[in-house]
């Protein structure tokens, strides 16, 4: 579980007007979010999350400042498994972002110099 995911859980609880939200997280753990003042009561039906289809693509395993591979990967390019598609820079060092599987890039939400968080999709596949 990352900070980002905890923040999303808090935001979800607030937006649904829930006072408390508890969910299972990896390795048998549980996360409990308690929001002090729920704004209003809501119908249970409205709280049911809408199914979200996870987009396939390349997600980060670190945080850092995005830097392009050389040459830069662009929308429409095909990448192969294990290909280095970009870098995440942390101060003076950089780690490779590698494609876990092959695919064709449909979207590239980040550009060089952007700050990227854990688990963000840096390349979306078609």
């Amino acid at each position, binding site marked *: 579980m990352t900070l980002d995911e905890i923040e999303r859980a808090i935001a979800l609880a607030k937006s649904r007007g829930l006072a408390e939200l508890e969910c299972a997280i990896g390795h048998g753990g549980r996360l409990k979010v308690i929001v002090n003042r729920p704004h209003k009561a809501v119908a249970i039906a409205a709280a049911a999350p809408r199914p979200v289809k996870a987009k396939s693509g390349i997600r980060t395993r670190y945080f850092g400042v995005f830097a392009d*591979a*050389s040459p830069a990967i662009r929308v429409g390019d095909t990448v192969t498994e294990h290909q280095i598609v970009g*870098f995440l820079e*942390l*101060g*003076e*060092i950089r*780690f*490779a972002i590698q494609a876990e599987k092959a695919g064709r890039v449909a979207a590239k939400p980040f550009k060089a110099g952007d700050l990227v968080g854990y688990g963000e999709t840096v390349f979306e596949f078609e």
Partner: protein
Amino acid sequence: MIEVLTTGAANSIQDLGRNGRFDIGVSRSGAMDRLSLMIGNALLGNELNAAGLEIAIFPFRLRFDQPARFAVTGAEGAVTLAGRPLPPRWAASAAEGETLVIAPPDRGARVYITFADGIDVEPVLGSRATDLKSGYGGLEGRGLKRGDRLDVMPKPPMRAFGAALDPFAALDFTNPLPVRAVPAAEHSVFSADARKLFSRWSWRVTQEADRMGYRLEGPELKLERRLELMSHGILPGTIQVPPSGKPIIQLADANTCGGYPKIATIIEADLWIVGQAGPDSRFLFTEVTPDEANAALRRQRHEIDALARTVEVARSLAG
């Protein structure tokens, strides 16, 4: 051990060179691009002065006979380990039997391969650098040959990473390379035209360019008056003007003294650019003061120290 599979005789073991013995005629030698060697050493947590390989003749191939950690820095081009491409300024680990291949670079002239804890050869006069001209240091004082085997430390695998610090980002090899220089002792004896030309002409590196020095092609630089000079000390970076009027940059393996008038000295912080410029590259010299030269060197060392510190933190976190 690593074994050299493909090489040229101009490829050699280099560290930061021999300092402090210029008075007895011992040249500095050492890496022509000291900055890239230091980045390669910093990436591996080495002493910045650890010995690595300077590759100027391509392709170069070596095989790891044991697991090892290495970094490839300097000139940028196709580099593969067991067929997998490596990004520029990259540190990685090799498994036993894997081959590292360095193709002719697209940008720059010299590639540096460093190894965790350096290459273990006996230091001569306080340095592991090869002095190719005088024939000592490094591996029996000579360049690398096919079949040479070198001692490097066996190391377990690590996650590969690279340097964000990118000195090449500012260089455009299709245009004259900006190089800063401090006016030298005889600068004022050159004619006003010569002094103007020196800092305005785009000087071309001729085919006579090696670890001893580069001859430059351009207009004749004339002296205001005849000058008889005693033989005097010179350093890597000194730009001499022989009677032909065509400047020579003295470099790593240069003699420690000479008698030609000197128009300028390339600053230490920019000497790596000269080391990365092959024949037909062009230089545009900019005059700076000694204070500016020292400040530029301090900034560069600060960046390398910052890289070394970040690597140290990353290694302690990774265990």
